[in-house]
């Protein structure tokens, strides 16, 4: 992602569809609903809130225009340029303009070839309105070329990092997440009237039961609180402490129309994230159309891909916990499979994941799957063995008996190649490590008790190798990784520790390894698994 530099000083932003330049081909209400959902994507990942106001003085004014329209970026009719938006600022800062000559679709279907999803473009343009520039990461929202939007859309990692760097992540409010019942049958379309006396055609999801704000003095800003801890008089299928989806599902009028019930002491208008007033059903007599087994929806959890798969927790009273993939390493308590300096940034690999550490420390959102950065790696990847950046800046990733060679994120033609093509023995199962040694600029491969010098020009190891690891005094055999850090020093890794290596004396500087987590990951010492030992 790229942060342009301008950002909003306040986080409660207002937006409006232009009163003058409205879409000539689209229904204004449907358009506002799509724009609201597009803004909601950014609201869900950051501290930003968006409130629709019917005024051209809003922070973000959305207009539909043709060809030249009073700015330096004329549109090109039904062509390749779809829309543009301005970075945060006063006046037209934050505004988004859409080419009214395009064929905009509010509910794109897969077979819509020449139409363009308004939602997909709006989410992108609002990224500009919030201060993000274009990203070269394919699949990211801020990728400049139109990509449409997948049905089970999840905000890509690259965009999440971008917006959270600017405005901070959403403050997690664990009581504000109710189980989200994914509609099995096609949602019924109904017409409802909201208090703003506008008729909204909305897609109504099954009704989800809610519970009142029992302790408004303690949770003034929260619409709902969980049950009391002892739900004795409720049917057993109610989990003791239900999870709720994010607020989107009861504040947004287009998803679920609400009316403010001022009479009830506990129901006061809350600061809604999107427009419309909030109605709260009378508590608790309404019999909810609540499925017997609420299915908690965790957007990033791959197991959620199939909504049809029933989800029955073993004990209904057991609180469904976030399922963290079993091989996801603990950042502060793990060994490393490979460590490499790539484009001046530290990459640490473990199992299917990797961390990325830049000048200002670890990037948020990591560890992340390795295949998200290098998507040509095998889908059933379990780990990598060794990684290094070659003198020609290509990135070499060794997995088992094969070398995958990347030009930044693109696998070079002809790869992966077996290790034997580089002169390594057929019997060699895997490499432990690989590095370009700063001391003499040569490349070395390590495996078990042996190491090789690799000639980058010839593309093969030298003939008078392998040699014994004893040459590298103090690191022993079967190392995990080795690399040259920015200080020009060489570092060997084994288990949860590492040695700094004296290149001149060809031995470790300290016999006793130091703890990797605190030095490389910046973890507080007490959290770094010292108990497990790391010799």
């Amino acid at each position, binding site marked *: 992602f790229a942060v342009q*530099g301008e950002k909003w000083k306040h986080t409660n932003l207002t937006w409006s569809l232009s009163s003058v330049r409205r879409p000539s081909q689209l229904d204004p209400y449907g358009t506002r609903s799509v724009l609201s959902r597009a803004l909601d994507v950014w609201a869900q990942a950051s501290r930003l809130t968006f409130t629709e106001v019917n005024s051209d003085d809003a922070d973000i004014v959305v207009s539909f225009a043709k060809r030249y329209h009073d700015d330096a*970026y004329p549109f090109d009719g039904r062509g390749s*340029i779809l829309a543009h938006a301005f970075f945060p600022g006063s006046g037209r800062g934050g505004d988004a303009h859409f080419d009214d000559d395009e064929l905009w679709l509010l509910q794109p279907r897969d077979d819509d070839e020449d139409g363009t999803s308004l939602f997909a473009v709006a989410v992108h343009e609002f990224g500009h309105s919030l201060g993000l520039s274009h990203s070269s990461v394919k699949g990211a929202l801020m990728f*400049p070329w139109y990509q449409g939007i997948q049905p089970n859309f999840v905000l890509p990692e690259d965009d999440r990092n971008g917006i959270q760097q600017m405005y901070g992540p959403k403050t997690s409010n664990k009581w504000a997440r109710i189980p989200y019942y994914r509609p099995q049958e096609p949602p019924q379309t109904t017409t409802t009237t909201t208090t703003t006396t506008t008729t909204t055609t909305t897609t109504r999801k099954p009704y989800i039961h809610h519970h009142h704000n029992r302790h408004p003095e303690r949770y003034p800003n929260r619409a709902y609180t969980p049950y009391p801890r002892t739900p004795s008089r409720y049917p057993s299928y109610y989990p003791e402490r239900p999870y709720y989806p994010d607020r989107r599902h009861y504040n947004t009028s287009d998803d679920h129309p609400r009316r403010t019930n001022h009479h009830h002491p506990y129901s006061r208008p809350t600061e809604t994230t999107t427009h419309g007033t909030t109605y709260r059903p009378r508590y608790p007599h309404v019999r909810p159309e609540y499925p017997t087994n609420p299915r908690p929806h965790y957007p990033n959890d791959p197991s959620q891909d199939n909504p049809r798969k029933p989800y029955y927790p073993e004990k209904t009273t057991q609180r469904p916990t976030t399922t963290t993939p079993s091989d996801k390493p603990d950042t502060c308590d793990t060994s490393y499979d490979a460590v490499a300096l790539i484009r001046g940034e530290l990459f640490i690999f473990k199992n299917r994941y990797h961390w990325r550490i830049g000048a200002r420390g670890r990037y948020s959102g990591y560890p992340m799957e390795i295949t998200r950065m290098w998507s040509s790696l095998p889908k059933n990847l379990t780990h990598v063995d060794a990684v290094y950046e070659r003198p020609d800046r290509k990135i070499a990733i060794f997995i088992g008996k094969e070398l995958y060679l990347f030009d930044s994120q693109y696998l070079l033609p002809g790869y992966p190649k077996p290790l034997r093509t580089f002169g390594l023995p057929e019997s060699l199962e895997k490499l432990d490590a690989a590095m370009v040694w700063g001391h003499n600029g040569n490349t070395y491969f390590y495996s078990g008790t042996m190491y090789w010098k690799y000639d980058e020009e010839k593309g093969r190891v030298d003939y008078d190798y392998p040699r014994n690891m004893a040459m590298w005094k103090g690191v022993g055999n079967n190392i995990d990784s080795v690399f040259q850090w920015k200080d020009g020093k060489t570092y060997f890794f084994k288990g949860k520790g590492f040695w700094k290596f004296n290149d001149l004396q060809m031995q470790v500087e300290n016999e006793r390894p130091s703890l990797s987590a605190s030095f490389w990951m910046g973890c507080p010492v007490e959290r770094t698994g010292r108990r497990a030992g790391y010799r």
Partner: protein
Amino acid sequence: RSRPTRSAHHESARGYLETFGYLKKGRPEVGNLLLVDSEQAYEDDFRIAIKTLQEFGGIPVTGEIDEATKALMKQKRCGRPDREEDEEQHGHRRKR
């Protein structure tokens, strides 16, 4: 219709590169008076701009206006430049 001559492709590519911030607007010769062979400098700039576009768009980096590049330039996209102008003028590094 006769196949567009190479300069036509060249011109439309130049327009595209200038629109989306890969190439400075206007003939660079004016800016390169110090160089002996400004045409060569312009060709280099043009080639670099094509490579930058190809890398940004995630297509093979050849430096040539090949088929993949032509297709990319026809694809629907956002109207904002990929490389913001102020970055060029002030040359300040934009946080990535």
